[in-house]
């Protein structure tokens, strides 16, 4: 791939620029006035080839919406998504087939994302069929190989079972096998381990790390578990009400968070040591919805460090404060 010199040595696989998704919502029964929910609001970031970028934040902050926009399950209100230098919005016809193969999404709920009437073989083979890849024998071989790779071995024991005959962890592995069987170069993984037990969860985390090494896959890894993100991701982006408020190397985010929201989020994570008396997270109120938000900092109402000037100022831009650590806060 020819890269312009300006992008330096980093090989960027995904480039998201000023991405927004607004949903019209009705405010009350009697008003005709349409309000807009800013699910994703002017978000920009990059994922490098072979990298795992974590997207973390509270429920409803826009993580899944961002993922859906990237795989073109939703259309942006504005902004641009480039995958391997191709503008996702402009893909048509035959190229769409190729895109659907190259870019995969693993969904949040392993109980709902698999068709209960299909066998495991049919589920995993489906993307191959749709994309017309290989002969039947070749598909069979690929499905078996993929099942072994995700630890469903021997594959013959699973091929003709139905999803309800598998445990949650096994179902999640099937979902991963299905996403990876077409050898994608980019995967959006939405909370693929959140409802699983630790032992299975650690297994899947290791599996994803391994597949990244073996197959060179890049991931956007969506989760609200910061401990998981720390282990799996090279960098972490923290979202709050549709905005990225901080982005940096995983260890920097976990050990040296700078944004007041990230600090609160990290300090709320329970720690597996009864001897530690974790201090109270420093944050006010509860999370709201970004419906017609004021132009100022989204975190203002809950921010323990806000200055008077924050009330008047525009929403702070995400900027590099050194070493690739990006923060959006007027006081930093």
């Amino acid at each position, binding site marked *: 791939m020819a890269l312009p010199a300006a992008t330096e040595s980093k090989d960027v696989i995904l480039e998201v620029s000023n991405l927004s998704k607004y949903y019209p919502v009705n405010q009350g029964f009697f008003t005709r006035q349409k309000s807009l929910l800013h699910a994703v609001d002017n978000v920009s970031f990059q994922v490098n080839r072979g990298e795992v970028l974590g997207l973390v934040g509270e*429920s409803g902050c826009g993580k899944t919406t961002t993922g859906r926009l990237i795989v073109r399950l939703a259309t942006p209100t504005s902004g641009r998504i480039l995958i391997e230098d191709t503008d996702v919005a402009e893909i048509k016809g035959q190229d769409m087939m190729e895109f659907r193969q190259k870019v995969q999404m693993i969904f949040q709920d392993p109980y709902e994302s698999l068709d209960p009437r299909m066998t495991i073989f049919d589920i995993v083979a489906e993307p191959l069929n749709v994309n017309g890849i290989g002969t039947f024998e070749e598909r069979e071989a690929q499905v078996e190989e993929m099942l072994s790779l995700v630890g469903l071995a021997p594959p013959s024991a699973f091929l003709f079972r139905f999803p309800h005959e598998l445990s949650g962890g096994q179902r999640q592995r099937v979902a991963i096998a299905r996403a990876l069987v077409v050898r994608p170069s980019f995967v959006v993984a939405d909370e693929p381990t959140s409802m699983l037990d*630790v*032992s299975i969860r650690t297994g899947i985390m290791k599996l994803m790390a391994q597949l990244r090494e073996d197959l060179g896959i890049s991931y956007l890894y969506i989760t609200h578990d910061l401990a998981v993100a720390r282990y799996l991701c090279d960098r972490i982006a923290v979202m709050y009400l549709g905005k990225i408020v901080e982005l940096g190397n995983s*260890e920097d985010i976990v050990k040296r968070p700078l944004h007041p929201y990230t600090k609160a*989020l990290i300090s709320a994570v329970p720690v*597996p040591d009864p001897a530690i008396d974790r201090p109270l*997270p420093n*944050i006010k109120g*509860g*999370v709201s919805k970004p419906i017609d938000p004021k132009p100022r900092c989204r975190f203002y109402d809950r921010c323990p460090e806000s200055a008077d000037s924050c009330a008047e100022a525009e929403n702070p831009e995400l900027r590099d404060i050194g070493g690739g650590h990006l923060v959006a806060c007027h006081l930093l």
Partner: protein
Amino acid sequence: MDTLLRLEDLTMHYKTKAGWVQAIDNVSFSLHRGQSLGLVGESGCGKTSVAMSIMRLLPYNAKLVKGRVLFGGHDLYTLSDEEVRQLRWKEVAMIFQAAMNSLNPVYSVGNQIVEAIVTHEPETGEDEARERVKSLFELVGIPKERMDHYPHEYSGGMKQRAVIAMALACNPSLIIADEPTTALDVIVQDKILREIEEIRRTINMSMIYISHDVSVIAEVSDIVGVMYAGRLLELGPADDVFKRPKNPYTYSLMNAYPSILGEKHDLVTIPGEPPNLLDPPTGCRFHPRCDWATKECREVEPAWREITKGHYLACHNPVRTEHGTAHNKTARRAPGKGGDGIGTSGGN
């Protein structure tokens, strides 16, 4: 000490088409008044079943095979249904798994709790119950103006608080909370757990927390019990169990969990999956997945014994290394197994 709850060799099976599911096997422990117990273990290991046994809310296909549940000295399973109804809510209350979805959508949240109070305490009038609900809302941090709102007008965190308020409504001596915060965001989880703990200390209530999240258990429990395949494998003071786990399963569980604390270390995977309880393994139920297993483990069920004051264990080959901060997990692992993994090469 004042023992509130005591399980003695509790054994409970479920009848299914495929046979008997041996969901609880010889579980014994005591809980003092004011104490909190955390029960951890993988999904399907019997945590909810233990809770339901204590509430005497087992489904029709469950059979108490052996053992006793003593609450305040009474054997729960010799009481009449009416006597148990008296105890429930007033003495033992439960916050069910996914309870926030259990509020009735057609009644206001406040009315549901008022209803619960007057049902369980016929001597309490409706006005008095409403007043109590107001103070309960204050206690769990919901504005009391929200009493007359319906569940759909509440966020997930508020619904969970309402369910906690409901459990507290009749001043029980014990609350059993089954995965009370699993579906919630960390900031909300943190607030709710702090609130429950404060209330517990203030009114000297006992708690049983059930979770598969060892970090949550570490933060809220005085004593910790580790369940596996229907059995308790270890139980003791939280500090002890976390710092010096003796059972290999406990040891692995503690190290399978990613943490934001300390240096990044290798995560241990516990190979395989929990067994089918229709036909559990012989001897120690953990032996097919245990790196420490010996012939004895495969044949003889390890006895449940007290190894140091208040620290109970079932294991033939207890772990001897300290679970320190160094996280050197590979130290005692059998050659060629486990210990590999993510974490070491992560980051940039």
